């Protein structure tokens, strides 16, 4: 049986995998290749995952943000030498553009080596091959950043170029003399274009020698300077000299390619190391920016998260001047999160999933402390984007049921299930029943499951730990108006997002009506709803 897919699309979207991938994206071609061959750590690989996360954390501690940004800037400037190595691999010659790429690659690798030399958690990115490549192309260096196939690469090239210069000078001299003669005869300036017009009315004598008529018109003649026999011979000599220079240049390029091919293995190793460095620095930068710490991953069951944060939301809140309220959760088997709408139940689930994802990637996690097993798969069960994509063929509940079926078909011990208000669109009684049954079944199969719900009594019926969002502290006296941003800000001020473990018989708060009022629902409706609630309670 094939291993289950670690994260399906709906789950990836729900917990913010795309955000994470973008946040730790490498900046060089080498890092991009490294990312392609990286895989997640799975159950049984806890030691490797812990070591990787600890290494990233040490790098994050070793370098400040500016130093890591400077490394990334150098990495981003590194040219990709893979095409050059591919050419020399098949015995082909090098283009001069590739010689420039190799020279700059060597410069960049050596610069990085000096920046990162003291960090034992990163591989070497220079060495003999890189030094020899730089030495090989150094003779072609022009200024700090350019390359020219200089005469000093080869004496024969120098000789051919000298012969060409001589042949060109002779031709130019002869042609210049012809042009000057024609220009003087026609009373023109010193410079004649390749083609020029002579007005018939201006001609007091026949055209001077050395002028060839290209076209005759009634009022003018279109002409060009006609090369004499001597100048034609000089032109042919110049062209022959140019051909010989081209051959000499190609011989030098072939020789350089052959020498690069002997350094290939070392260069490929350096490319791989640069990829590792790129990935590690990107992860360390992210770790430092978001104050992440290595999780304790082990093969034992249970999840414990202290002050965990869902970074995609934290970043968005901080951009808007807000602050994220971390959540702490600890359970083994099954847990329930209850609380008011917009109180952060779903965010608590996303936080758990995000932290598990980070741990499985060998990254430090956004929490004061986290202990968990590496899950073989993470599934988000709730109304998700896939339900929309089925083109309306399935109802919301049917979509959830299909996802539940698929998740249980692949369910393995330590799998992480994040159940967000499951079956909310069906009757409360059946919703309660299917949720409790699913929690029992998941726990029996060794999965870790956490569910957010409004339904009362689920925790007790499922034998799960019960966590609750504290909820609204009060309702503002003045309406914030219809502006959504303002409304959310007011709501954030009123809401106590902290999560705490509660007893099983906790009575659920009735914040929904207060929230409806805050969100501007007609007061008459809200008042009637309150009356109905009161009647039911009595």
């Amino acid at each position, binding site marked *: 049986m094939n291993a289950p897919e670690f994260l399906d699309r709906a789950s990836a979207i729900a917990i913010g995998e795309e955000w994470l991938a973008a946040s730790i994206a490498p900046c060089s071609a080498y890092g991009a290749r490294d990312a392609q061959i990286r895989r997640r750590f799975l159950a049984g690989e806890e030691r490797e995952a812990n070591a990787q996360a600890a290494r990233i954390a040490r790098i994050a501690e070793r370098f400040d943000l500016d130093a890591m940004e400077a490394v990334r800037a150098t990495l981003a400037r590194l*040219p990709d030498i893979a095409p050059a190595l591919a050419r020399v691999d098949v015995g082909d010659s090098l*283009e*001069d*553009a590739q*010689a*420039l*790429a190799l020279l700059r690659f060597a410069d960049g690798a050596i610069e990085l080596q000096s920046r990162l030399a003291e960090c034992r958690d990163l591989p070497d990115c220079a060495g003999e091959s890189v030094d020899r490549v730089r030495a090989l192309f150094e003779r072609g260096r*022009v200024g700090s*950043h*350019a*390359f*020219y*196939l200089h005469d000093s690469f080869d004496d024969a090239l120098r000789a051919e*170029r000298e012969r*060409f*210069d001589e042949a*060109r000078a002779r031709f130019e001299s002869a042609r210049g003399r012809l042009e000057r003669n024609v220009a003087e005869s026609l009373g*023109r*300036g010193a*410079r004649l*274009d*390749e*083609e*020029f*017009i002579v*007005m018939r009315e201006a001609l007091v004598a026949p055209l001077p020698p050395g002028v060839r008529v290209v*076209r005759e*018109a*009634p*009022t*003018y003649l*279109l002409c060009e300077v006609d090369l004499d026999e001597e100048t034609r011979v000089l032109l042919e000599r110049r062209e022959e000299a*140019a051909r010989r*220079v*081209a051959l000499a*240049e*190609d011989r030098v390029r072939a020789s350089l390619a052959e020498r690069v091919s002997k350094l290939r293995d070392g260069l490929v190793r350096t490319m791989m190391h640069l990829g590792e460095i790129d990935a590690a620095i990107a992860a360390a930068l992210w770790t430092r920016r978001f104050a992440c710490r290595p999780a304790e991953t082990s093969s034992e069951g249970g999840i414990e998260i202290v002050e965990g944060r869902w970074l995609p939301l934290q970043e968005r809140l901080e951009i808007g001047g807000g602050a994220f309220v971390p959540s702490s959760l600890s359970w083994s088997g099954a847990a329930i999160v209850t609380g008011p709408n917009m109180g952060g139940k779903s965010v608590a689930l996303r936080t758990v999933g995000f932290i598990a994802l980070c741990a499985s990637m060998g990254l430090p996690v956004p929490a004061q402390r986290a202990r968990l097993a590496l899950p073989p798969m993470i599934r988000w069960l709730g109304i998700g984007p896939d339900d929309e994509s089925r083109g309306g063929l399935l109802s919301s509940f049917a979509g959830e049921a299909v996802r539940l079926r698929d998740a249980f078909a692949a369910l393995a011990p330590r799998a992480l299930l994040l159940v967000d208000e499951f079956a909310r669109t069906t009757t409360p009684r059946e919703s309660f029943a299917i949720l409790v049954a699913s929690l029992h079944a998941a726990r029996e199969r060794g999965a870790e499951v956490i569910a957010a719900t409004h339904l009362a009594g689920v925790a007790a019926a499922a034998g799960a730990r019960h966590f609750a969002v504290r909820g609204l502290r009060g309702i503002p006296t003045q309406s914030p108006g219809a502006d959504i941003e303002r409304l959310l800000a007011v709501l954030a001020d009123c809401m106590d997002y902290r999560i705490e473990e509660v007893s099983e018989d906790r009575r659920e708060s009735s914040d929904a009506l207060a929230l409806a009022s805050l969100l501007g629902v007609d007061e008459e409706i809200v008042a009637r709803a309150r009356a109905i609630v009161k009647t039911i309670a009595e």
Partner: protein
Amino acid sequence: MEVSDRLLDRAMGIGARSVAVVGTGKNVGKTVVMRAIYRAALARGMKVGLTSIGRDGEANDFVDAFAKPRLRLAAGTLVAGALGALPRSPALEWCESTEIQSASGPIAIVRVRTESEIELVGAPTASGLRGSVAALFAHGAEFVAIDGAIDRIAALRGEDAVIVSCGAAGSTSVEAIAAEAGALVALLALPRHDDTSAALRIEGALTPMRAAELIARGERRPIVVRDATRVTLRGRALLGALDRLQIRVERPLRPVAVTVNSVGRAGSVEPKALLHAVRAAVSLPTFDLFAASAA
């Protein structure tokens, strides 16, 4: 003073560090003008950079396969050209391989070390062209000449001086050539909108249909578009619209001169008559490089 020097003076006289040569059509002498300006700048000891909007400078015209004037470049000249079109020999000095893409590969910045002929294939997009020009300056060019393609004025900016080339390639009627040049210059010379007056802003393009509607309703306010590329009227239709509407732009261009080429493949026209007719139509200094004359 030679015509090429006068053309260069026109560009530099407005403080421009770059000049773009655009044509009313193909084979109107753009490359001859480029070459003349290039040589004039070299003669003054300037470090010159060259590029083109898309493909130009090749030995045979890519569209109609006729032989084209060549660009023979002196040592020291900087070129922003497509990797695949740059010669292997004589070797060039490779300064930079940019991220700017063209159909013939990424745009590279190279310096000519040995006089040679180069096929100038530049960036096909406006942003690519601006990036190429910036890279040429960054590598030491003191003056940049841009070989324009047919009707590719979208890539031009106010910092470029613009020279318009027209000629007998498409028509052998002096009047028609002059009218076409007049319309293109009028388009490029659309004045900047004065922000203090109430105006009708058009976000997209001012099309012939939209212009006809505005004329029909007697619109008196200035009609403001982003730049000349947003006006899709051409020829006599444009001149007619300019008579009846106050068309303004947010980003004006700076045409400084016009060149004429009386020699076309379909036929030719009388050089002096063309020079003076175009001069009258464009109200800008007009030059004939072939005949070494000006009006």
